[in-house]
């Protein structure tokens, strides 16, 4: 719907956020993504550290062929089950493959699966939840029931059953993990959509004859992006653990593809598992999950302090996703401001 129409109807679209001026020094007009990031880092040191480590792991995953000292699949029968030494920093496994290279390549598979699964699952769930919250009625009732049923399965067990049914392999694992993530997205975004559909500007959109699909995409959807990001980032860690567990249980990405879970599964086939085969892949999982959890927590604390009414006010009223850039240039920089309060 045309912005002019909104103005004529005396309603203000949410895209004009009230200024949130924090007592941060510097010229607000100059602030960019970088300054926003540095502000985030100063407020959430741990989350920033998690973000850095996470970025490093993503880098390792992407640059695996450049970083890995050896071919992760190449067996070397002269050097089987060797402890870490100068030649293989993390030792070798039972068929002489280099553990370091396998851990590095494992990051590739694990991150790819986790990112795709979270993206797929959260997106499907969010769109579904958005439709539920906006359309209400019988569709909503039935959908809520289905999501509840999906949530009645323990995550890992549902993922196991699905991955077994549709065959092991990368796509199967991604779909299996994604399905376990759908209800989370569905429920949270539904509650956001439920409150947004009552906003005056949505009503204005409806009144001016926009179709449900149009109102949903142009007026409700933009407000769901912040909670969507929160959801996606908090579920990354879970997805990585599920992927590793599936690999460990032998229903994940099939060997010989190196994944951290597969490596742990391989390690315990030995009567006495060599410690380096257990330690390094597990450490990789732990550090990655820790990093993403810290980052996710930080993002959640920034964007959504516990999905509370205050959060909903934030999302619907003030649009904190793009706040500082919109700080008023016409008003002189106030000397004393309270965050979230218009001077």
């Amino acid at each position, binding site marked *: 719907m045309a912005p002019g129409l909104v103005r004529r109807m005396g309603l203000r679209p949410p895209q004009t956020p009230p200024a949130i001026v924090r007592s941060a020094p510097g010229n607000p007009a100059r602030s960019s993504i970088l300054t926003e990031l540095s502000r985030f880092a100063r407020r959430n040191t741990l989350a920033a550290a998690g973000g850095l480590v996470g970025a490093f792991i993503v880098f390792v995953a992407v640059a695996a062929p450049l970083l890995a000292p050896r071919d992760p699949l190449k067996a070397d029968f002269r050097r089987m089950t060797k402890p870490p030494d100068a030649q293989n920093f993390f030792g070798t496994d039972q068929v002489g493959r280099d553990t370091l290279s396998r851990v590095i390549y494992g990051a590739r598979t694990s991150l790819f699966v986790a990112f795709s699964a979270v993206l797929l699952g959260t997106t499907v769930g969010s769109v579904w939840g958005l439709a539920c919250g906006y359309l209400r009625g019988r569709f909503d009732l039935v959908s809520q029931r289905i999501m509840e049923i999906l949530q009645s*399965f323990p995550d890992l067990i549902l993922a196991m059953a699905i991955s077994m049914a549709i065959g092991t392999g990368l796509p199967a694992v991604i779909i299996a993990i994604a399905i376990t993530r759908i209800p989370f997205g569905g429920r949270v975004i539904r509650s956001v959509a439920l409150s947004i559909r009552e906003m005056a500007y949505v009503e204005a959109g409806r009144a001016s004859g926009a179709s449900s699909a149009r109102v949903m995409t142009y007026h409700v959807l933009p407000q769901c992006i912040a909670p969507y990001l929160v959801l996606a980032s908090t579920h990354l860690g879970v997805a990585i653990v599920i992927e590793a567990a599936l690999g460990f249980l032998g229903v994940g990405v099939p060997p010989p593809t190196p994944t951290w879970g597969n490596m742990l599964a391989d390690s315990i086939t030995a009567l006495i598992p060599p410690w380096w085969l257990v330690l390094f892949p597990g450490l990789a999982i732990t550090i990655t999950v820790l990093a993403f959890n810290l980052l996710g927590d930080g993002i959640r604390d920034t964007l959504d302090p*516990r999905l509370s009414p205050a959060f909903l006010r934030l999302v619907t009223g003030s649009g904190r996703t793009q706040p500082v850039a919109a700080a008023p240039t016409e008003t002189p920089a106030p000397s004393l401001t309270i965050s979230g309060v218009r001077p």
Partner: protein
Amino acid sequence: MTSCGGTRSGWRRPEPGAARVRKYLGRRAAYAAGTLLGVSVIIFVVLRILPGDPLVAILGVEGHARMSKEDRVRIMADLGLSDPLPVQYGRWLVDIAAGRLGKSFFRGDTVAELIAHRGPISAEIGLLALVISWLVGLPVGILSAFKPNSVPDGVARTLSVLFIAIPGFWLGILIVLALLFWFGYKAPIVIVHVWQDPWQNFQQVLGPAVVLGLAQGAYIARMSRSCLLEVIGEDFVRTARAKGLRESLIVFRHALPNALLPVITISGVLLGFVLGGSVAVEQAFGVPGLGRALVTAVVERDIIVVQNLVLLYASIFVVVNVLVDLSYAWLDPRIRF
């Protein structure tokens, strides 16, 4: 996240009418039964419709090709897999109602025997993990909340963040390895029931329970800390302080009961995590529990076993969450049936 409990002091618990309770119970049970029915439909759809020919799933592509056509038809009929799907589904439900859970393709023992033999071990692990999680999580949470931002609080929070991130099955392998390395100790591998040899059984159960309990305890510590902090900010706690009550009395009489409700909720939600996690942790410790049986069945594509065990796990999850709901009404008199 649910909001933390509010004021409660001064309330007398109104005695809810027995009839009302019964009515509520009935409604809640019917709802849970509906959910379980849906669960069974999803399991059936996932396991029967998605893989195409179940015989290929069982025998593998090669084994399937090697078999003669009559053999295939006979086996399918034997297993009851050649009937129309709705008939198969209906028969499954009837079988469950009658307590017949079918048989493993490969081992010949029935699923009921499997559950009776291996279930107790897994149940012990789950219960012990629950006890450990509360024993560890709650005191840590209380300690954190009453000295926020102190050194112990920092340590507690760091540890809880760490234990949430560490995958239980990895910690399990590490513990097994450490015990083996330094003490040459290995827990018994075959099933020892508690009524056969309590000590041996305890050794078998303790490891997985500790691993699962610590991870769960980390969530509980975190939740109880944040809820206690919220409750401590309330007026009635200040009043209690102002009239000079002992700190212990303030904590255990005034603050804690109000902060517990969300902690109980999260404990119920975490059960899903324990049930799923126990499957991997049992594998890591080599404990022959139900989770191990499920993994074996999944790897062997033993559909009948998988469908019944998955249903069992989901049922436990659903039933416990109904109990959690009921415990609300018992713990918080403001919640009416």
